[in-house]
């Protein structure tokens, strides 16, 4: 299975990165890993679940805010444990997704372009609401969010430095990546493909389409929430921009460029887009944005499976050869 080899190589390279990159790049890749995790969450719900959520930042931002609220002790000044924060930042968005999902999918439900626009509208509304919620910092957001404290049993170890932060986040990302891979290759993955393919038919085999959609939506929201929580501990601030339109569309570009139907490709999509953006924008100046737009267009039209997934699949092709009729 060439696929696994490629995966191992990529994560090995990521693990080795800090050995020859300085603090800046280590810090930078910490962000990229978090974005990669966020991209995985979208890939799960969109590429695998067939639910195009144009407001994925809803969950990223909610996770970020919840993490900030807990670790800044805004509700319980004594309970500022990072683990508690992460727990809340994972379950909160998942519950939100269940509620939203119930509203969107129950009964006749909506899908496709309608769902996409509705989720986008929800993201815009939430961004507005957060901007007006002064207890949560309003438009400028919450500042001075403490870094992740991975201490246990009363000891405290705050992740201020680039190197330990990087490895902790890498460990989280690798674990979740593997878990997602197992999940999508299990029979649940089969059900998801069937759901994308022919949702109406599935019910007549005894599957509750609503239940499946809710599960995948909530799982994706939990992942997005976690990535939001990690993000704010690294960045130290959370503001309505993390919940709204622009981040939602950004993650969409990463995943679309990478390849939504392939976890590894979506993850790399985030990493490579963010990474190349840095030096390409220096190289091309004002023309960079123009080029990005054109490149995005070209990738959607010419390589609908994704700029990264297409070559990766060619490299690791093994699935389901179609023998010609004999």
């Amino acid at each position: 299975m060439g696929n696994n080899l490629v995966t191992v190589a990529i994560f090995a390279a990521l693990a080795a990165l800090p050995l020859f990159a300085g603090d800046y790049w280590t810090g930078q890749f910490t962000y990229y890993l978090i974005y990669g995790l966020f991209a995985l969450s979208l890939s799960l719900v969109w590429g695998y679940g067939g639910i195009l959520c144009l407001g994925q930042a809803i969950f990223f931002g909610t996770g970020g805010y919840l993490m900030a609220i807990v670790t800044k002790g805004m509700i319980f000044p004594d309970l500022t444990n990072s683990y508690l924060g992460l727990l809340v930042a994972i379950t909160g968005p998942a519950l939100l997704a269940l509620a939203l999902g119930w509203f969107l999918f129950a009964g006749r439900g909506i899908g496709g372009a309608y769902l996409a626009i509705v989720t986008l509208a929800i993201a815009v509304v939430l961004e507005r609401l957060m901007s007006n919620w002064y207890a949560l910092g309003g438009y400028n957001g919450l500042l001075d969010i403490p870094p992740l404290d991975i201490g246990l049993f009363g000891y405290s170890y705050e992740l201020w430095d680039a190197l330990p932060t990087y490895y902790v986040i890498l460990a989280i990302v690798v674990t979740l990546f593997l878990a997602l891979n197992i999940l999508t290759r299990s029979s649940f993955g089969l059900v998801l493909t069937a759901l994308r393919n022919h949702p109406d038919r599935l019910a007549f085999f005894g599957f509750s389409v609503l239940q499946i959609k809710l599960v995948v939506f909530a799982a994706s929201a939990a992942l997005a929430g976690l990535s939001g929580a990690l993000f704010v501990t690294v960045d130290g601030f959370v503001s309505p921009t993390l919940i709204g339109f622009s981040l939602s569309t950004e993650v969409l570009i990463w995943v679309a460029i990478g390849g939504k139907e392939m976890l590894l490709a979506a993850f790399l999509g985030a990493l490579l887009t963010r990474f190349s953006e840095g030096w390409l924008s220096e190289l091309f100046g004002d023309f960079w944005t123009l080029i990005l737009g054109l490149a995005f267009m070209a990738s959607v039209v010419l390589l609908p499976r994704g700029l990264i997934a297409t070559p990766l699949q060619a490299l690791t092709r093994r699935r389901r050869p179609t023998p010609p009729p004999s």
Partner: protein
Amino acid sequence: MIEILPPLLDALSYILVLILVALGLMIVFGMMGVINMAHGELFMVGAYVMVVCQSLGLPFLVGVLFSGILVGLLGLLIEAALIRHIYTRTLDTILATWGLSIALKQGIVLIFGPEAQSVISPLSDTVSLGEFSYPLYRLLLMGASIALIGLTFWLFLKTDFGLTARAVIARPDTAATLGINTRSLYRRSFVIGTTLAGIAGALVAPLISVDPQMGLGYLIPGFLSILVGGAGPLAGVLAGGAAVGGTNSLLTVWISPVAAQIAVFIMAILVIRLRPEGLLGGRRGK
């Protein structure tokens, strides 16, 4: 009576401008299944063509004409290079045209710079109706909007062109087997949509700030109008525009602009969820 008339007129003018802007979007989305995220930018290009025409000293109407023609040509180019590859992939059209919108916006920044340009209103008179007065240009704009809406409806619902267009949209392959040139029909519909965007941009330019970001402000309410109204029948855009524009204008007066905007979004979300086929019914999206 006098108390209620002005806000209603304001609401009506917003609704009509909104529908004017959304009309092209409607053709392209409702009839061809293409979600054109770059529609706002085509509208913007129309306004910039107007800027150039005015700086060359051309009359306003000539500017409107040029805007329509040039943006129509741009639409032709976009169709040939981009849209025709993705007609059957609705969700991909969101992504591709979104890339296009980024590129168009940046293109304008590179040519004109980021600052706002000015377009002078051809008419600065106001007409007085008893106690209150209303800007003449706005009244004319409302008239132009009604005329263009009527024209579009006539074109798509009453003519043979419209019949063929709707057939191609419903079953492209079958239409082709009847001898209908589907490619050219798609292209013509798309070009009509973009031409309308260009004309709308030129007509609205005197009223708003003409800058590279101007497209988005209409795009989102425009989309909401279409979805609220229903994508199937063209008439949906009228109902949707009235619901979105009317709610927004009246709540702005009665409560506040922020509340109005949030209310419009929530209304749209609820309508789309509870009546996915839109206020006027029709085909339901997949």
